[in-house]
């Protein structure tokens, strides 16, 4: 008896059971009970995702490829455009279904990234302005980034059901943090003397935000966006566990059947998609100086068109 007591005293963790796991399981019940309340949101988000996916799939692959290459040219220059064209061609030839699977995955990723920007940009700006908010937010962001996806997979499925909407939601949870962090960092590292000068010339707080702080923070924010896109892509395999279609699902199914070949095709597809998106967003991040201080519409295909127009006009 006495022996047991000392061991209890030195090792209280084993003998005390707060039943946290049991209590936490209540979240499942809560999720099921609130299913109805979340329906409008689910229907809306589902509509958005399906719209993007349908548009991507309805476009003939070569046209889609051309559009992506043009975007790459506009955002990151000719060299990147060629790189992207080659990468996408390889992606298309990986397998007969590879292109449509990649488009489905791209649609999911796009939806997740759009949601991340809508949430992350304002939250990040606010965090950049308020130390207290940032202090409260930081552990939450740490949790979102590090908690294993399997932990919140179950409650999300209970709440929303399997499918694309849940997939986008778990992706957002995982991929949101860097955008918020880097937006806040970008706002915080704006040269305070430039902000002071803007104040001295009579700028209002919102003018300082939109004319000074956000433009100066843009490179950092783009770096955050790039990270968010990359993390979104790394979630596609996990998201496929809750019945999200696309390249991730290929990998998951191949794993179940020990089909190494199919897994490689799916995996390479994801890698190529990641490279393409990375190069395009990194191109956005290039400083104006590297592009000869021109505005974005003065270079790339749009620049060509406007030039033609100006010559004729």
């Amino acid at each position, binding site marked *: 008896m006495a022996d047991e007591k000392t061991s209890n005293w030195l090792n209280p963790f084993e003998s005390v059971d707060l039943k946290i796991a049991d209590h936490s399981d209540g979240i499942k019940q809560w999720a099921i009970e609130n299913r109805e309340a979340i329906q409008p949101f689910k229907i809306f988000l589902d509509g958005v995702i399906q719209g993007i996916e349908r548009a991507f799939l309805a476009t003939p692959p070569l046209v889609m490829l051309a559009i992506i290459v043009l975007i790459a040219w506009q955002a990151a220059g000719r060299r990147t455009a060629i790189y992207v064209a080659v990468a996408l061609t390889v992606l298309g030839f990986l397998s007969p279904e590879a292109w449509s699977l990649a488009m489905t995955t791209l649609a999911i990723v796009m939806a997740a990234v759009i949601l991340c920007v809508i949430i992350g940009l304002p939250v990040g700006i606010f965090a950049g302005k308020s130390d207290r908010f940032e202090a409260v937010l930081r552990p939450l962001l740490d949790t979102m980034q590090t908690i294993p996806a399997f932990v919140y997979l179950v409650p999300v499925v209970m709440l929303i059901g399997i499918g694309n909407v849940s997939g986008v939601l778990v992706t957002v949870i995982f991929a949101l943090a860097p955008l918020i962090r880097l937006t806040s960092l970008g706002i915080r590292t704006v040269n305070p003397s430039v902000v002071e000068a803007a104040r*001295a010339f009579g700028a*209002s707080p919102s003018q300082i935000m939109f004319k000074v702080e956000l433009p*100066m923070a843009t490179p950092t924010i783009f770096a955050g966006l790039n990270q968010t896109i990359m993390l979104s892509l790394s979630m596609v395999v996990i998201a496929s566990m809750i019945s999200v279609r696309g390249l991730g699902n290929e990998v998951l199914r191949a794993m179940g059947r020990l089909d190494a070949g199919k897994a490689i095709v799916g995996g390479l597809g994801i890698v190529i998609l990641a490279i393409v998106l990375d190069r395009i967003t990194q191109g956005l991040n290039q400083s104006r*100086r590297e592009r000869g*201080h021109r505005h974005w519409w003065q270079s790339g295909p749009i620049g060509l068109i406007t030039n033609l127009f100006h010559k004729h006009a």
Partner: protein
Amino acid sequence: MDIQGEEPVIRCDGVWKVFGAKAKEAIRAVKAGELNKAQIRDKLDCVVGVSDATFSVGRGEIFCIMGLSGSGKSTLIRHINRLIEPTDGAIYIEGRNVNAMSATELRRIRAETIGMVFQNMALMPHRNVRDNVAFALEVRGIAEDKRRAVARQAIEAVELTGWDLKYPDELSGGMQQRVGLARAIAANPSILLMDEPFSALDPLIRHQLQGTFMELSAELHKTTVFITHDLSEAIRIGDRIAIMKDGVLVQIGTPEEIVTNPVDDYVAQFVGGISKLDLVTAAKVMLPLEQYRQTNGSTDTANWPVARPDDKLNTLVNLSIGTAHPILVRDGDVVAGVVTKDALLRGIQGRDHAGPAKREIN
């Protein structure tokens, strides 16, 4: 320059700035004479930035505030457009209390009445020269073509024509500060605040920009508060100079007053190395004619070179060369006094002619 009855453009009235949580308490203690600055720092954990600054700047005047780094001069100038709130005291711009203004009024006066130039330029790196210069107009919502026209004029005034569409990082330091100057004058403000505008530049460029600034200011007649740590710059530019030390304005006066009559050892130390040739006037070094006659006997002044009372020592030196006679100082038809060679040399040295020089005359 006196302010003749007219309300000064800028008036600082007993301005205090104390940094720290217990600032109010600290000011009360200082005013009551209970604590000195070191005690405030140790006991209340407060730092006195500006203590009891009172001065006025008249219309069109260039008022230099000169002090070493940490003397509180940059803190003081930021009170004028309320980038910093005073802990105590008040600042009036054309009779209106800046600290009683609403946020909207304050933004209006900053955009329309006060232009500011910063030591580190503080240009916006994402905007080209033209958009930097037109910033004050842009925040007031002025139409783009008007903005461009105004910006073009301001850019022309600082001799940067042709650089409108370049970005700040493509410009040299001196050119960047020209942009800063153009930005400050673009909205045609009546007041210019210059926070060590030329300190970060190399000496030649600094001299050149001082010249540009003086031409501009002679032309535009802006009331200017000019911060510098360089007394010769203050003397070159300022109509009046205030010397600041540890947050206190130790002496305010014209360059000549400061140089010939430093109020304490601290000011005297600065003034020591300054050339008096272009500062000190004949009126300052001359003797009464009677006194001269008492010692040298009645002499004929007909062949003497003649100067006016406000002629500078430099002119007197030129007059004195090639003649053995002293210089007669005339104010119109009235003989004001005599400048002897000894007095002139003492004047150049910066010593009072009534001192050792007088004994030598005797």
